[in-house]
């Protein structure tokens, strides 16, 4: 039985991809050499978020270990659109899987400029919109307001015929409504969840307590958010007809299986990859085994 899966017109070898910003294939090539391509763990590769202008990212420290999870305040460091196209694209195109480029703007115009540029590049198979950027006026994430979201997605839709995936923000009152707005705006798929807004105070003794993270607050990922992700994925999958990419705290194939049973077509792994870069391959193999045994779910 084939383990392959169709996703927005792409034929993928299995249903496991990476979460944006949690795997740098270029750095990994340096660390792991040719094994990276030989044993590439993901069925498609999602780039970290690319913005129009280059960004250095947030001051250190950028990480805090929370119960069952990780808080990061990375701040989307990237070479900017031009740098990405000039420097990164050729290397990413060598990967043995389709390339999904994740982009973020702070306005509909910025988004559609990013998408338009990606549309021109044959190396890019699909585009993911990161709509978790706070809107300067409302303070809300752009993706938290269904109307605004539909408008942003509509502008992007007009700029490309490549598959458009909208990565929803979990910091919204009604995530299924946002997913529906993305679909109405012309999205081919939605992905979720991104990290939950979180914070840690510095453990320093005495004096005024200040936030530990250089960026003030950060985003919580990992096992701690798994049950929140499952609830949001199930609610979104019940609401939209386009495919759903589920992620959040996946560590093992049983977690991926939960997301698929809740309605996800693909599953992404993020934080667990930090603990073991081969996580994606392990999860995919586990799903394959589950299939072979006739969809049986192994209990501990």
């Amino acid at each position: 039985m084939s383990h392959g899966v169709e996703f927005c017109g792409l034929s993928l070898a299995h249903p496991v991809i990476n979460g944006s910003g949690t795997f740098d294939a270029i750095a990994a090539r340096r660390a792991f050499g040719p094994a990276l391509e030989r044993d590439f763990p993901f069925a498609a590769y999602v780039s970290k978020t690319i913005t129009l202008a280059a960004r250095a990212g947030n001051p250190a420290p950028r990480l805090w270990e929370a119960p069952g999870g990780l808080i990061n305040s990375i701040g989307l460091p990237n070479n900017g659109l031009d740098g990405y196209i000039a420097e990164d694209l050729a290397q990413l195109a060598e990967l043995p899987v389709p390339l999904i480029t994740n982009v973020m703007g702070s306005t509909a115009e910025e988004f559609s400029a990013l998408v338009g540029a990606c549309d021109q590049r044959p190396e890019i198979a699909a585009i993911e919109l990161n709509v978790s950027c706070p809107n300067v006026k409302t303070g809300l994430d752009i993706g938290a307001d269904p109307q605004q979201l539909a408008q942003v997605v509509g502008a992007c839709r007009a700029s490309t015929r490549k598959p458009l995936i909208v990565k929803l923000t979990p910091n919204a009152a009604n995530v299924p409504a946002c997913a529906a707005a993305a679909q109405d705006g012309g999205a081919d798929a939605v992905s979720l969840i991104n990290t939950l807004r979180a914070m840690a105070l510095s453990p320093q003794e005495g004096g005024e307590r200040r936030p530990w993270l250089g960026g003030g607050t950060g985003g919580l990922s990992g096992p701690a958010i798994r049950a929140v992700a499952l609830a949001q994925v199930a609610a979104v999958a019940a609401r939209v007809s386009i495919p759903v990419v589920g992620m959040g705290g996946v560590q093992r194939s049983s977690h991926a299986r939960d997301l698929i049973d809740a309605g996800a077509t693909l599953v992404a792994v993020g934080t667990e990859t930090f603990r073991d870069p081969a996580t994606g391959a392990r999860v995919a193999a586990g799903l394959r085994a589950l299939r072979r045994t006739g969809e049986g779910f192994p209990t501990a």
Partner: protein
Amino acid sequence: MSQWSAAPAPFARRLLTVLGIDELGVYRVLRVADVETPEPRPGQFAMLATAERWGGGEDERPYLPRAFSIARRRIGESHFLLEDVGPGTRRLCELREGDGLWALGPLGRGFQPPRPRHRAILVGGGVGIAPLAILQDALEAEAATDVTVLLGFRDGARAQGAALLHGARVATDDGSVGHHGLLTELLSQELYRDSRAEVYACGPAPMLEAVRAMCATRDVPAQLALEAGMACGFGACYGCAVPKRGGGYLRVCVDGPVIDARELDCVSEHAGAPS
């Protein structure tokens, strides 16, 4: 392949077996059976986690693996120098013969060999002496370089760690062993004696910064082995950033941990070893 070039790390964490754990003052030397790992370059590190009991401590930590310099290689063995400073190092210090250890590596950029006819001055503070041990082994294997070892510790119990290297001059903060004062005072003497040297340093951030500043002033090349909180160790998370000269950040795990001192304006407070 020379000992200065690194082979890529296996692309998955591996389960290794603990051979033993030895006391060295307040430190522990963890020895693990490690046959398949490519030979590390001095200065490289591994991400380690115990196979059991990782997680579930106070505040449910540790969760992520922790970074440790490869302190020494023997045939089929890797050694790590550990100081118990928190939940992750505590669990590692509690390992016993036969226990399992998850390891990913060797990772990162190691030290560059000194230019011909330059003396290597190894400057290590506290648990930061670890990568200098394997560096000393490598330099002595080539026999072409004069090696001077300067090690600094907070107190006598820590100064026992100096036994990891040999022929070291030692300084302690409390004067209980060796020179009573700062390690950089010893370095200053050495550079005064003969400044045709290259400095290799690893230790707490204030020490590294003092070394950096001293070498910059005297125009002595220095390679600093930095540290930073790491989630992955292979460039995936961008969490291990330290500011670089001219703006922007370096990732300690892939751009380092060994950084040419000239790439930094200063060593930031989070970029050193536990002190």
